[in-house]
């Protein structure tokens, strides 16, 4: 089996002449929880739809669970769970009927998991979908994806419309799923504190390009905001070419950059005769620093 549950090579997709996803090389290790982040319109949903095989790329290759979505057989689809941003469930069906109906498509359906999730989320199976709140309807969609026992679970904004408690419970379910070996989850989210709690790998997409794809630990340990100050000879000529953000005032420089090891930072500061101070960043800070348009 491939070590990557999801792999894309130079995937590009345009809509009406404008490029939405460009040269995307995404790799999601088997067994990881991959948090896929980006601002609205950055290309997240387009990417996820391509992974789920709902739309095709203009160019490039995609493999999910080792198979190109365009070649998915029914058996391949059993192994891939997908919950879209706006999952549409038949509003007139009762939850129990919807479960029975959906279960008919999947030979490995996990009825025990259905019961467990219904109880955990306190969903009344005799209710009709149309009478559920938006958040509860999403939980039902999630339940349906989980009960098919997928190897790879792709979730587009799964926690949207859920309150704090429901979100925590949802995350617990995701973690439970992962505790069964080899399961892979890719989920997009706006709620960075959730991503920070459960994800081990992070992808950040901006303007259709993947800016970051690496472990959350590495991201937090190497992306730093650094304030350079006390310049003996002024800030003129001070540049850091590969900084994520860089701004200067008359006597200070603020930069967000990779600090793999502090020696290089010390050397930089001493060559410009200045002092520096390191400010650690959490995921939300890092996200903002990376996706924000650079200031001049």
């Amino acid at each position: 089996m491939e070590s990557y549950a999801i792999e894309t090579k130079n995937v590009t997709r345009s809509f009406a002449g404008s490029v939405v996803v460009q040269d995307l090389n995404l790799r999601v290790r088997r067994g990881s929880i991959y948090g896929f982040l980006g601002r609205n319109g950055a290309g997240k949903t387009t990417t996820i739809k391509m992974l789920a095989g709902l739309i095709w790329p203009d160019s490039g290759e995609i493999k999910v669970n080792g198979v190109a979505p365009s070649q998915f057989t029914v058996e391949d689809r059993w192994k891939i769970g997908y919950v879209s941003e706006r999952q549409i469930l038949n509003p007139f069906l009762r939850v129990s009927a919807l479960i029975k109906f959906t279960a008919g498509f999947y030979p490995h359906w996990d009825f025990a998991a259905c019961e467990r999730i219904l109880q955990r989320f306190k969903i009344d199976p005799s209710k009709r979908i149309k009478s559920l709140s938006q958040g509860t309807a999403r939980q039902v969609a999630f339940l349906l994806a989980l009960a098919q026992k997928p190897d790879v679970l792709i979730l587009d904004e799964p926690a949207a419309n859920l309150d704090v408690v429901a979100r925590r419970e949802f995350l617990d379910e995701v973690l439970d799923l992962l505790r069964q070996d080899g399961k892979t989850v890719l989920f997009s989210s706006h709620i960075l504190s959730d991503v920070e709690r459960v994800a081990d790998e992070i992808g950040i997409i901006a303007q259709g390009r993947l800016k970051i794809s690496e472990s959350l630990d590495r991201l937090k340990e190497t992306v730093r905001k650094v304030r350079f100050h006390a310049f003996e000879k002024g800030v003129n000529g001070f540049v850091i070419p590969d900084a994520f953000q860089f701004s200067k005032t008359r006597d200070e420089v603020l930069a967000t950059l990779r600090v793999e090891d502090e020696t290089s930072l010390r050397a930089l500061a001493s060559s410009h005769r200045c002092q520096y101070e390191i400010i650690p960043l959490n995921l939300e800070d890092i996200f903002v620093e990376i996706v924000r348009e650079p200031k001049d």
Partner: protein
Amino acid sequence: MFIHLNPNSGMPIYRQLFQQLRQRIVSGQLAVNEQLPSVRDLSAELKINLLTVAKVYQLLESEGLAETRRGLGTFVVGGNEMHSVVEKRKLIASAVEQVVAEAQHLGMDEGEVIKLIRQRFEETKRKG
């Protein structure tokens, strides 16, 4: 086990967990030979990723604070006594190095130096 993690801090979760466990082992709150919760249980309890806990246990092992006994689980080793011995040895090593270098320089042999060290120990003992 009460562990407080703040996922929204700039410090990675694995590091927060590692520091808290290390502190408990070194201070003796977690006793030698005490079994740590399984990776699965601790990740479920703290509601964090399984891989994060596995990574922390590996780090504890590489620092010599814990060991995995096949089929049994992960256990605390060492603890405060053993670690302070290692620390003390490290501290005295530079003084020993200096004495040996000086003796070689003066052409004194090992036996003479050891005799002097013994004498010195006895003098301090007598003074009590």
